[in-house]
């Protein structure tokens, strides 16, 4: 089973102070750590699990700058066989839609049974690249996949819906799934695999292989701004009954109940 996994290197902003740069359209990245996007690492792991079961190869693809190769190399250490970087520097202004188009023109030249992507990138939070890519490649898809049970040409997948509910689908292959976190436990790379990965070559693709004039951009950032938020604790006073009532009112007000 040949699987392509689309991954993205993203700044780790969950625990960081995010500041807007002078252009007002991007963030300061100097002091941020970068790492594989969270759900992408689950997608990679799911591919490795299937490879262990069925054999085949795993190809990881990412549209990114030079340092993305570090992330791709980690993917190689964790079980991918091939890695491709599409040079982001060749394509100004990339949004989710454009990323999908770029990936499409690379992937359509490859052979595959399955394509995995993460269900959301933590930087731009679009949740669209995977599904768009499936549509561009004209293959069926399922997003937010939380369980996969596959045979040679069909897959039973569970999608994660809201409120603890899952939707069970039966999909023919080749197909694209966007993978939800928690589907598995991403593995560690062993030192042997790390050494092996260190020697592998990463294929780099630039604009010469992708006609960038045909690519469409859906969105452009006009401005970034910090959402208004106050974080001063408000102590609710009074008797237990009084303070509890006040709190209940707040719940109601905020639509939390």
């Amino acid at each position, binding site marked *: 089973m040949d699987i392509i996994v689309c991954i993205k290197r993203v700044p780790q902003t969950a*625990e960081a102070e995010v500041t807007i740069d002078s252009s007002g359209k991007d963030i300061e990245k100097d002091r*941020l750590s970068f790492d594989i996007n969270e759900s992408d690492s689950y997608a990679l792991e799911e591919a490795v699990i299937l490879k262990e079961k069925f054999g085949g190869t795993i190809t990881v693809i990412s549209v990114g700058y030079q340092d993305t190769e570090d992330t791709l190399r980690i993917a190689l*250490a964790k079980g991918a066989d091939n890695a491709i970087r599409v040079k982001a520097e060749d394509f100004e202004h990339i949004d989710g839609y454009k990323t999908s188009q770029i990936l499409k023109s690379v992937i359509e030249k490859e052979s595959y049974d399955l394509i995995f992507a993460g269900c959301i990138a933590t930087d731009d939070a679009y949740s669209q690249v995977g599904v768009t890519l499936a549509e561009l490649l004209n293959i069926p898809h399922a997003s937010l996949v939380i369980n996969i049970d596959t045979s040679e040409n069909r897959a039973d997948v569970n999608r994660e819906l809201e409120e603890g509910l899952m939707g069970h689908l039966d999909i023919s292959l080749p197909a694209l799934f966007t993978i939800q976190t928690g589907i598995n436990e991403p593995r*560690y*790379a062993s*030192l042997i695999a*790390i050494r092996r990965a260190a020697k592998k070559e990463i294929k780099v693709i630039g604009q010469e292989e992708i006609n960038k004039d045909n690519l469409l951009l859906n969105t452009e950032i006009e401005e970034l701004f910090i959402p208004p938020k106050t974080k001063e604790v408000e102590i609710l006073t009074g008797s237990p009954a009084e303070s509890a009532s006040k709190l209940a009112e707040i719940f109601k007000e905020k639509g939390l109940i």
Partner: protein
Amino acid sequence: MKDKKTLTTEINPEIRDILIEMGAEDIYKCYQCGKCTSACPWFQVEIYDYPVYKFSLETALGAVASSEDKKELDKEIDLIYRCVGCEACLEQCPHGISTPNILRAARRLLVDFDSFPETLKSIVQKTHNVGNPFGEHRENRADWAKGKNVPDYQEGMEFLYFPCCLPAYEARNQKVAQATVGILQKSNVSYGILGVQETCCGEVIRRIGAENIFAEVAKANIKAFSDSGVTKVLVTSPHCYTTFKNEYPDFGADFEVLHTTQYLSHLIETGKLKINKSFNKRVVYHDPCTLGRKNNIYEEPRNILKSIPGLEFLEVEDFNRNLSLCCGAGSGGLWLEWDKEERIVNVRLKQLMDTGAEIIAVACPYCLQMFEETIKSMDTDIQVMDIAEILFECL
């Protein structure tokens, strides 16, 4: 499926060589006596077998963290990150082999390849992103000093007081920083703080294996210190102490470092600090690994405590000074919080409580945090205090 062999039968010289290059150079000295293993704090944790003595030989075979089986590899990496870096093994090793360093060599590779526990990954990222392992805002770094008349550091002051991240951000530990500046003010010492300009010393992330980010952090601090003309730094945490004193010079640092217990004992000895009140409690002192074993500071904390009138000074029999037992917080242990049956801190607390003490005196924010959190869930009246807090009460 066939049973997989759990041992790699091939020797992998490439992994061995790279680990040696990364700091595991001691491996060939090992003669497999196993003293390290029974000296290790994990030996005292009833349900946990920690095979310290295997690491040298397995590194020499290139067989560290090299299982291709996911579960086995998980176990191996768990082992690599169990080490709390207390150096109890090194203290007794006949050949001076530093197992923490051997493990750190492997950790460095694993960190580069995103193959270490999530919890630790998060503290590496936080330290990198906001300059402290708790993910607290940088601009709040001096909040502990609000309303305490703590001056900003100016060139020409005698000391920079560097509280470390726990005393800067964590509520219980902030009291230690506050007591410390209280003492400094009462003894008319000229000192100041850098506040938002300071960054975590980076000790813990270096122990975890994040060498590159440590280097960044170290350089940032060194620059901040030298830009402000700092020549002497007073630290509350032994972890800052050892990093500044023993590791920063490799990155170009040129300043003197004093641990608070060193300086306070000096103030008492020279009569610059008068103790006015007595402290009528039984106090047991816990030697922090990083202050004691790593930096040989055993007497100063004892001298301070012994100079306080009324204080009955106690020692943990068999487990004091260089044979002290770690609290379990080092090298990431503070964050890893192993399952309750697997906590070194419980063993240590029992030893401390068995002395009949009313107060456990510590000289390290990690130990304070570890003990404070653990005694809360124990049925005991024993309290934990930093030596600076005890001293401050007696002024």
